């Protein structure tokens, strides 16, 4: 499978390494040339030596998307730091380049939910964090302060 990841921050670079390790062909696109270094964190060889691709450019630039291989991508992940950028470029991948699997990271739960309903696969880390926090608080509430807690006994 050929995976194109736009936005090579903490999330994008981790997913990129994982996909490469699993034997997929991976191409990353990021505006910041420095983000290439983040890709190689924990790797023994360079990203390119391991078969990865890296292109410098903005996700909205057609030339950059084509150079990064969008026309033959099987999967497209939009993980830049901008929700609106991710939503727009994911739709471009879907509607213009007919990429079979398109996923957009959207931090705002409201936008993530609405676009999900419009047929765009969105992943919302904020919702996940909210669920985990609520779950953790509930689990803690069951325990409460034990009777062996001197402060509670007082």
């Amino acid at each position: 499978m050929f995976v194109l990841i736009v936005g090579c921050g903490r999330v994008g670079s981790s997913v990129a390494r994982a996909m490469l390790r699993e034997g997929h062909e991976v191409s990353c696109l990021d505006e910041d040339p420095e983000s290439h270094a983040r890709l190689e964190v924990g790797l023994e060889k360079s990203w390119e030596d391991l078969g990865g691709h890296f292109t410098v450019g903005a996700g909205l630039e057609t030339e950059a998307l084509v150079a990064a291989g969008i026309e033959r991508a099987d999967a497209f992940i939009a993980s830049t730091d901008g929700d609106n950028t991710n939503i727009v470029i994911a739709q471009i991948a879907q509607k213009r380049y007919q990429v079979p699997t398109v996923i957009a990271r959207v931090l705002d739960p409201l936008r993530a939910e609405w676009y999900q309903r419009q047929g765009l696969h969105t992943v919302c880390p904020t919702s996940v964090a909210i669920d985990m926090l609520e779950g953790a608080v509930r689990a803690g509430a069951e325990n409460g302060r034990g009777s062996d807690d001197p402060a509670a006994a007082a």
Partner: protein
Amino acid sequence: MYIIVVGAGKVGWNLARELLDKGHEVTLIESDRRRYLTVEQELEHNVSYGDASELWVLERAGIQRADMVIAVTGDDEDNMLICQVAREKYLVERIIARVNNPRNRPHFDLLGIKPSVSATDLILRLLEHEVPEYGLVHLLDLQEEQLEIIEMLLGKDSSVTGRRVGDLSMPEGSLLISVLRSGKGFVPTADTVLEEGDEVLAVLDPGKEDDLKALFGPEGNGDGG
């Protein structure tokens, strides 16, 4: 009409002011706190603070009853998203989006965001009109009458220098009306021979410019388009 304008930069601020003057109800949304406070001194309750790509900010501004949403921020992705959400989620009938980078226009079209306005495109189009190739200058545009008068300077490489006016096959809908040579103008006859440095005036139907350019330019053959 109730109009929501997003982005209180120069475009949005002036637009909001003009729309208010025309008697419309306007909410201008700005996400930068300092800019908001500046604009608020003049527009008071007509300006609202918040990031309009957050749906609740749009809802707080009353997008459900808006007749029009105009997104003129400096960020094309924001303008696209706001207009897409306005039309498809809140069923706003009219949207207008600003295109900052003309290269992004295909993306606006792809997402069905129309009309979109690009100042760069507009200026480029004007530039082509005002400063065209081969020194073709518009002297007069009679839009109602559907006629234009243009002036062309015949350069060294023009293919019509040294030729008789009568031998030129002028494109249909165009007529050579005057020649300016050495500071003096005269009406050419069929026997007038055109010279380098002549300025020729022609009257033509709109849309015939390219034909004339083809005839008088360096690539022309003097035989009309």
